[in-house]
């Protein structure tokens, strides 16, 4: 159950980061409707954000492993 709560908290963090970053990118001037272009931009932006998250994650973890080896 702890694991589940943590997973929920992390998913919440991801959603809120995507929202922050993609809102600014796709809806710089909020109008009176959520128009199809904005919607499609948000969909793509969400996927690109997760791509970026994966690249950052891989880069960070491999760097940390390299540093750890250097310490030993």
């Amino acid at each position, binding site marked *: 159950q702890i694991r589940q709560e943590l997973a929920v908290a992390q998913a919440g963090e991801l959603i809120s980061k995507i929202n922050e970053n993609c809102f600014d990118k796709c*809806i710089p001037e909020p109008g009176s409707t959520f128009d199809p272009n*904005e919607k499609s931009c948000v969909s793509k932006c969400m996927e690109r954000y997760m791509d970026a998250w994966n690249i950052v994650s891989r880069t960070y973890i491999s760097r940390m492993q390299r540093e750890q080896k250097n310490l030993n």
Partner: protein
Amino acid sequence: LELSKFIESEQQKVKLQQAIHQFTSTCWPKCIGNIGNKLDKSEEQCLQNCVERFLDCNFHIIKSLESTRK
């Protein structure tokens, strides 16, 4: 029981207020120009649109993530 319900409802109020604080500080710089004696119509409209679109964006992301998982 009474106390735990009271705490829960207070916590919900706090979460609600935090969400409103967050939206206000996200939408304020987008919508407010020079500081005047009251908000003008276009600033009010902009704040409303900003909250609605931010939530649209949020709901859209949550739904997309859910449908990806299935």
